[in-house]
């Protein structure tokens, strides 16, 4: 275990090094002087010089990279050029929105995916099984932003049931504490705000949840089918236990292990899916911010946020892999 952790952490360092080089390199590949590109052709020479110094563009390229890495290690991801805000601070301010969205999606995916998988396995080869698996196959193949657009069209534009974007209504009164709107509104005892936040969360969370839900449903189904063929299930039935009890306490408990792993693995998918979901739903998380920064050509934000997302992504993958062995001791690490 210890050796494995060391080995994985070394790989992780290499991955992060690769990612940082990639991000740093690509941003510098953009033709033209970044300072001029950002400020426009009519910027004064003083302003351009100021931005160049701020970005460290007047130093040799390896020095720029070392400064970027050294600052990143200290938790300083640079300063936005257009708004003059520290990137790290803004990431911290916006990340709760992304987490809230991903968390909501995770809950929906698990609460719907697991029962769907169980029912399909129990009613194997029925019309329910067939149609839910076709649904799962389609769910996996449909892109997140596509689902998002369709949900907006159906529930916001046509039916007017739910808002089409943002975290709250435009005129909402909200004093952020943690920036988790649902949590804050409960802390403040403001149920109206809570309901409003929830209404805004539903559509994006469903859009983001669909792919993980389909994967979870398929995994639960195949895992349940495998368990249901075991001898101890036959024994349980022979003892005269009710089918409900056989399924829920004998089969499900053993079938859930692989499902838990799959749920964990979805976190990465949720994070990258969030970039698109946030764009479609104008959700003010870090994904949306990154896309906005790309349009605005705000290099420090692009650099910082990309690195931040990559770090989260790799770390979560590592944690999931390690947790896997804790949950299922049969898995050997090499």
């Amino acid at each position, binding site marked *: 275990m210890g050796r494995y952790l060391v080995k994985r952490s070394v*790989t*992780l360092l*290499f*991955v992060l090094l*690769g*990612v940082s080089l*990639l*991000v740093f390199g*690509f*941003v510098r*590949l*953009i*033709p*033209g002087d970044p300072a001029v590109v950002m400020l426009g052709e009519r910027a004064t020479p003083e302003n351009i010089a100021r931005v160049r110094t701020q970005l460290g563009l007047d130093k040799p390229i390896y020095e720029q990279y070392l400064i970027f890495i050294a600052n990143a290690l200290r938790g300083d991801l640079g300063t936005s050029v257009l708004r003059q805000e520290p990137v790290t601070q803004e990431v911290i301010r916006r990340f709760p929105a992304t987490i809230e969205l991903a968390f909501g999606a995770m809950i929906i995916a698990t609460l719907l995916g697991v029962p769907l998988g169980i029912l399909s396995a129990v009613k194997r080869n029925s019309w329910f099984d*067939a149609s839910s*698996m*076709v649904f799962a*196959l*389609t769910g*996996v*193949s*449909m*892109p997140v*932003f*596509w689902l998002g*657009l*369709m949900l*907006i*069209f159906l529930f916001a*534009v046509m039916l007017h049931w739910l808002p089409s974007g943002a975290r709250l209504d435009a005129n909402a009164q909200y004093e952020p504490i943690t920036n988790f709107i649902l949590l804050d509104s409960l802390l403040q005892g403001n149920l109206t705000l809570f309901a409003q936040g929830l209404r805004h969360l539903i559509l994006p969370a469903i859009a983001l949840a669909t792919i993980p839900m389909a994967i979870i449903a*398929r995994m639960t189904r*195949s895992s349940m089918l495998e368990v249901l063929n075991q001898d101890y299930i036959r024994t349980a039935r022979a003892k005269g236990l009710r089918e409900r009890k056989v399924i829920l306490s004998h089969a499900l408990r053993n079938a859930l292990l692989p499902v838990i792993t799959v749920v964990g693995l979805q976190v*990465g998918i949720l*994070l*990258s899916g969030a*970039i*698109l979901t946030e*764009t*479609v739903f104008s959700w003010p998380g870090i994904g949306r911010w*990154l*896309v906005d920064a*790309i*349009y605005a050509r705000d290099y420090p934000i*692009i650099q910082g946020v*990309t690195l931040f*997302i*990559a770090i989260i*992504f*790799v770390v979560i*993958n590592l944690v999931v892999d390690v947790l896997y062995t804790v949950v299922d001791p049969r898995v050997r690490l090499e």
Partner: protein
Amino acid sequence: MASAAVAGGRSVNQAITKPPQSLWVDAWHRLSRNKAAMFGLALILLFFFLAIFGPMLAPHDPLKINSGKGFLPPAWMPAAWVSTNNVGDPQFFLGTDSIGRDVFSRLIYGARVSMVVAIIPTIFITFFGILIGIVAGFFGGTADNLLMRFTDIVYSFPDILFFVVVMFALRDTPIGDWGNGLILLFGALALVNWVGVARVVRGSTLSIKEKEFVEAARSIGTSDRNIMQKHILPNILSPIIIITAFAVPRLIIAEAVLGYLGLGLRPGTSSKEFFVTSWGSMLLEGQTAINAQPWMLLAPAIAVALVVMGFTFFGDGLRDALDPRMRGAG
């Protein structure tokens, strides 16, 4: 899936009298009885047809601006969807966009991008994936280690982020200009996706190279190159075909996503050019006009859904047909 019972359905007599069939004939038989897969194939062929014969099929010039006819609803709508006074015009089957361009014609031309993305990057990733995977699996050692570390890196990074960064960085360079930015797009898509093919090829090579016939070939002095080409490759074709079939819809989606983010290829400005618009950028335009002319959004959305569904169902059927043991897995 639906064809689960088909293969075992022959009676004993038939099995004896029937001449032996090659894997491919056998697989085609299984595939052709799979309704979902055949439906998928039909969809794929339909979209290829639209892409190739676009200019003959499109009722209008996809770039022609019809002034005064902006935001027309589809032909079958007597009145507007949402409070405008426009009325559907039978000339414009799916209505028009903000400046009066025919949505249906644009949709047909948009098929070209998706279909080209379905072919060219796929060829690249299959070629390089096979080459690198087979070499890594066959020789092992440093080449293998390098490949697996690189795979780790690619898999631990969200690919959409990579596409976005690459497209953003290189769009305004000379590379980004080649073929309306298509070369850059192919490069970005291929650079990430060959890894999946290489991994599968490597895994299959590892198990095949231990087989007796490879040992036999080696003992009579067959060169490494010949062993890889004539002994290993033909035996790992099934997994290669399967992984390729599943890569195609992913490529199409990636292109649509980039188009939607405004980072896709640059559309041509005259209808003589091959690429006039893509479904991804139509979705982007459609979202901004979601209240005024919903079909600007719905038309490309349905098209993307159908083409992705077509490739997914076909891929699923291919897997069942080529590798019956894998049926229903994954």
